[in-house]
Each structure stands twice: as structure tokens, then as C-alpha cells.
């Protein structure tokens, strides 16, 4: 962003920059960048735990409303202080460390899990000037950080020296790793077409609106739609959310790799899970929903970080909505879905994206054909593979006994 381009933006857009310069101003030149980075870190560390707190409240309120009940409304007006009450409860709960546990690993696991998910929050472009760390290979860094959380999960399962939590950790690990592949493959077309690994570059590639109201977001292309769907399903599994929340499934035999944790460490695990959820939906917004781009040209008066927040919250609401509706998948079905359904579709999506890229030059007349072909390339494999995988399952008709 060249200096004179910044002046063009509205003062609201430049607000974060002005605030930063206000704080970092008096520091002499060579130390200024340290202070600026510290401010960026402080902002992320302030915003996301708060978002986690209110996300747990929102989850319980929305889940309650879906189930025709008010949700928590006793603590504070309408339940607004409920997260802090939960926080205090978690702090005061006794933190039991089993005697057989390996104390270092036992303590380190939740800390590692939270820090890895926080790391991945560093590269997401929250606004036009709001990128904590604008790396060229930001996407690579993001998925490296979020992939290392699997290490922390296994550390948690191993540290408790409990046979069942070790088994559960292996299950959770298998789930996370097998959903890593569709997650990464679904974003390869985005990187391929944007030509860059840097998130702000990808957002820039989705700038502009054709005919004023059609944004150039990736989701509005056949391969983008398929990629977004695969990315979201894999993100659900990565964050251990609803249809894939196997590790802490209470009806399962093994109560999961968290059995040996209690008190604040237990809360840290959930905080990490919510951070991972926010990070993945932030990345989904950046890759497919045009990051901080406004949907329509005339709506640009709303600041870029506003649009990012709206899109992020709507995705998080989608997570909660799915959690309220869907039952849980069994471990073998979950694996089959990842390896035999999402992975092939993600690979075919590469073909669709390349076709879309090569047919970019087609004239206006050929656009419907281009769209038809693109959508067929997405829909046909979806139906074929879906049918083959779900042979024997399907709605049934019932007969009645002769009177």
C-alpha cells in the first residue's frame, strides 16, 4: 500500500494506523518497529480471548434459542457476564494432576495447544491496514502452525498415562491428520489462481466488482464454491466441531484425551479449540469470501475490518447452527468421508480451477457454457462419488400389515 493510497481512505479506515502511530510515536526510530509489533500482538491477544468468551455465550444462547429456550440469562443482563462467571469457575476448579502423569508434558500440552492456535492468528488480514504479520508465504505459515496443534493433542493424550486417553488421542490424531489433506488441497486452487501465498495478495486478487455489484470473490466461481464447501467441512473436523466432535463425545466409550485434565487446563483446551475455529474461519473468509472486501462497491464506506468481522461472525454462526442440528459421525465413517469423498473431490477441484483459469479468455457469449462446464465438473463427481459411497443407505418406504 503506497503512502498516497493510504491518504485516500476514509479516516475510519486509517483509524488503526493513527492509533498505532499515536502510541509508537515518541519511541525513537530504531525501536519503533518493536513497539508496533508489541501493539499488534497485544491487540490480537486482547481481541481473540474476548471473542472466545462471547463466542461461548453466543453458542449457548443460539443453541438455546434453537431449542426453544432462552439460554443463560441469569448472570448479568441477559447473561452477558456468563463467560466471566465460567472463567472464574474454571479458575477456582481444582486442577488434578494424576500421580502417574508426566508433570512437564501434562502442563505443557494445553499451553502448547493454545500457543499454536494463537500463532496461526498472526497472518490473517483483518483489514486493509490490519495485518499483524504480512508474510509473503503467510498461507504456508498458517497451516504449519495449525498443523502442529496435532502434536499438542497427542502430548495431552500421552501425558495422562491413561490407556484410554492414549487410545482417544490416537483417534483424534487420525481424524486431524486425515482432514489436513482435504483442507490443504481445497486451498491450492486459490493459491494457484491468485499466484501468491501471501494472504493480503490473495485478498487483493479478489478485489473489484464487475458491473458494480458482482464481487470477484473466489466463492462466486464453480471451483470456489466446491473449494469453500470442502474447506468448511474439513475445518469442522480440524476444530473438532459438531459432526466430527469425536474426541469429547460423551456417548463414546472413551471420554477422549481430555480425561486427565480439570480446572483451568481443561478450559485452555476449549479456548484453543475456539481459537482454531476462529483462525480457520478467518482463513476461509480470506481465501474464499474476499477477506475484507466489501460485497458491493457502494458499501465501501463501512471499514474493511467491519466487513471481515461480519463475514467471520456469520461463519461462526454457521458452525453453531450445524452443531445444533447434526448428529455425530462414527470414527470409521468419518475416515471414509475424508479419504474417499473429500480428497477425490478436492483433487477434481484442481481440474475445475485449471479449466476455469484456461477458459478465462472466453468471450461474453461463451460465459454460460463456461459456467455450465465448470458447475458440471463440480457437480457430476459429487453425485457419482456420493452415490457410490452411500450404497444401501437411503430413505425407505414402509408397508402395513394386512388388516
Amino acid at each position, binding site marked *: 500500500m503506497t503512502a498516497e493510497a493510504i491518504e485516500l481512505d476514509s479516516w475510519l479506515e486509517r483509524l488503526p494506523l493513527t492509533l498505532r502511530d499515536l502510541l509508537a510515536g515518541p519511541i525513537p526510530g530504531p525501536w519503533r518497529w518493536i513497539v508496533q509489533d508489541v501493539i499488534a500482538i497485544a491487540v490480537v491477544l486482547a481481541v481473540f480471548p474476548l471473542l472466545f468468551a462471547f463466542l461461548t455465550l453466543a453458542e449457548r444462547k*443460539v443453541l438455546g*434459542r*434453537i*431449542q*426453544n*429456550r*432462552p439460554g443463560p*440469562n441469569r448472570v448479568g443482563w441477559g447473561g452477558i457476564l456468563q463467560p466471566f462467571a465460567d472463567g472464574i469457575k474454571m479458575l477456582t476448579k481444582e486442577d488434578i494432576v494424576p500421580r502417574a502423569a508426566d508433570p512437564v508434558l501434562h502442563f505443557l500440552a494445553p499451553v502448547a495447544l493454545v500457543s499454536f492456535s494463537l500463532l496461526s492468528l498472526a497472518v490473517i488480514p483483518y483489514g486493509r491496514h490490519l495485518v499483524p504479520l504480512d508474510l509473503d508465504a503467510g498461507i504456508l505459515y498458517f497451516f504449519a502452525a495449525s498443523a502442529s496443534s496435532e502434536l499438542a493433542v497427542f502430548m495431552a493424550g500421552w501425558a495422562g498415562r491413561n490407556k484410554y486417553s492414549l487410545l482417544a488421542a490416537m483417534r483424534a490424531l487420525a481424524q486431524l491428520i486425515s482432514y489436513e489433506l482435504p483442507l490443504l488441497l481445497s486451498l491450492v486452487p486459490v493459491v494457484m489462481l491468485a499466484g501468491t501465498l501471501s494472504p493480503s495478495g490473495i485478498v487483493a486478487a479478489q478485489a473489484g466488482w464487475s458491473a458494480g455489484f458482482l464481487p470477484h470473490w473466489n466463492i462466486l466461481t464453480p471451483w470456489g464454491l466446491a473449494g469453500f464447501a470442502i474447506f468448511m467441512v474439513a475445518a469442522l473436523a480440524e476444530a473438532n466441531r459438531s459432526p466430527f466432535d469425536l474426541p469429547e463425545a460423551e456417548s463414546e466409550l472413551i471420554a477422549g484425551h481430555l480425561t486427565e485434565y480439570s480446572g483451568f487446563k481443561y478450559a485452555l483446551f476449549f479456548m484453543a479449540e475456539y481459537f482454531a475455529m476462529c483462525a480457520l474461519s478467518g482463513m476461509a473468509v480470506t481465501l474464499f469470501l474476499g477477506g475484507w472486501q466489501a460485497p458491493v462497491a457502494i458499501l465501501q464506506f463501512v471499514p474493511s475490518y467491519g466487513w471481515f468481522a461480519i463475514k467471520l461472525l456469520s461463519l461462526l454462526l454457521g458452525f453453531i*447452527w*450445524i452443531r*445444533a*442440528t*447434526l448428529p455425530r459421525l462414527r470414527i470409521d465413517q468419518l475416515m471414509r468421508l475424508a479419504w474417499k469423498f473429500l480428497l477425490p473431490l478436492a483433487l477434481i477441484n484442481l481440474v475445475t480451477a485449471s479449466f476455469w483459469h484456461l477458459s478465462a479468455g472466453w468471450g461474453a457469449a461463451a460465459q454460460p457454457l463456461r459456467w455450465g462446464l465448470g458447475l458440471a465438473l463440480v457437480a457430476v463427481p*459429487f*453425485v457419482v462419488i*456420493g*452415490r457410490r*459411497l*452411500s450404497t444401501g*443407505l*437411503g430413505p425407505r418406504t414402509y408397508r402395513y400389515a394386512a388388516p
Partner: protein
Amino acid sequence: MLGTGILKGLAVTAKNLAGSFHDPGRFVTTQYPEQRSVLPENYRNFPFLVAEDDKDPMGTLRCVACQICEKECPPQCIYIEKSRDKKPDAAGKMQLYPAVFDIDISVCMSCQICVEVCPFDAIKMDQEFEIATDNRFRPLLRDREQLARSNRYFQQVHPTEAAEVDARLAAARRAAEEKAAAKAPPPARQEVQTKPATERPDPPAGGIKTEA
């Protein structure tokens, strides 16, 4: 098998989410301490003894200590000891009364069989359910004084049933008076009714009393 079922399910939950804001059918919680749901008239909790008037409840108990409810109570939670002397009841007839009438409400399962078998409408079911105590011994054993309630309270709690019971009792009382009046005009003879104190008045044949 291609996610259409899942989408229909999501649509249902979305309808409920939206419905919970405007449609009372989709928002069913009553916030208990602040709002209270209306108890139906037939609701029953623990029994209480009916006394004619509330100024002197012990004096005007309808119960004549016939111990039918004590025998019929399935969990055997009623304990009655008859009095040695007699006192006139509402119709003026000399009746025994219960010296001790305990109900152990930690054992009582509020099945209202005592109400059903009582020939004198002396015991009815209460509707008060906020009776938690912090001691499981003494407060859960209610004696005569704690169990007695006035007929007026009974009329508040079960209006239709009370009306029907009062009507029947009034009719019985009128019949008793006419019989007494018919018997009274040839005054002269003074029968001395010697009734052993402990003999239990024989309850009318165990006919069924259908409450409205």
C-alpha cells in the same frame, strides 16, 4: 444421499431459531421464580386435614379417626391414635377425633388414595409444593396441627371439588336434622345411648364417591 436431508434439517432448526422470538409455541420456558405456571385444579401434592373453621382448627376437624386411610395407605405413612373422649361434629353427632394424626411426608407419595377412601371427606390433597427443608427428620413428620387447614382454604385450592363436597355434606346434614326432627316430637322417652368409647363408628357402606 447428497446432503439434501441435512439441509432440510438445518432449515427446521433455523425456523425454530426464528420462531423462538415471536411464536409462543416455540419458546416454552417459564422463568420459575419470576413467572409461575398455572397449576391445574386437580394437581395434588401432600394431604391436609380439613377443619370446618380456621379459628379453632383442632376443635372442628372433620376427621373422626376411623383409620381407614391408615390401613389403605400403600406406603403406610399415616399414623393415627384415637382420642379417649368424644366431641360433637358439624352435624352435632358425638364423634371421636384423632389425638395424634401424623403423616410422614418423606414416605408419602401423594397418590391420594387416602382422599379417595375417606368416607368423611376429612383429608384432601394440597397444592403447595415449595416445602423444602434443610433437616430430613423433624420437619418431614407433620403432626395434626401442621396438617390442619380450614375448609375455606380447601375451597380456594380445589373450588369445584370443594363445592361438590360441601353440597353433599349440607344435604347429609339436612337429612340428619329432618330425621332428628321427626324423631324428636314424641319427646318423653329418654334413651340412654351407651356407646363404648372405643367402638369405631361404622363408616357408611364403602360406596364410591365420584369427585366432579
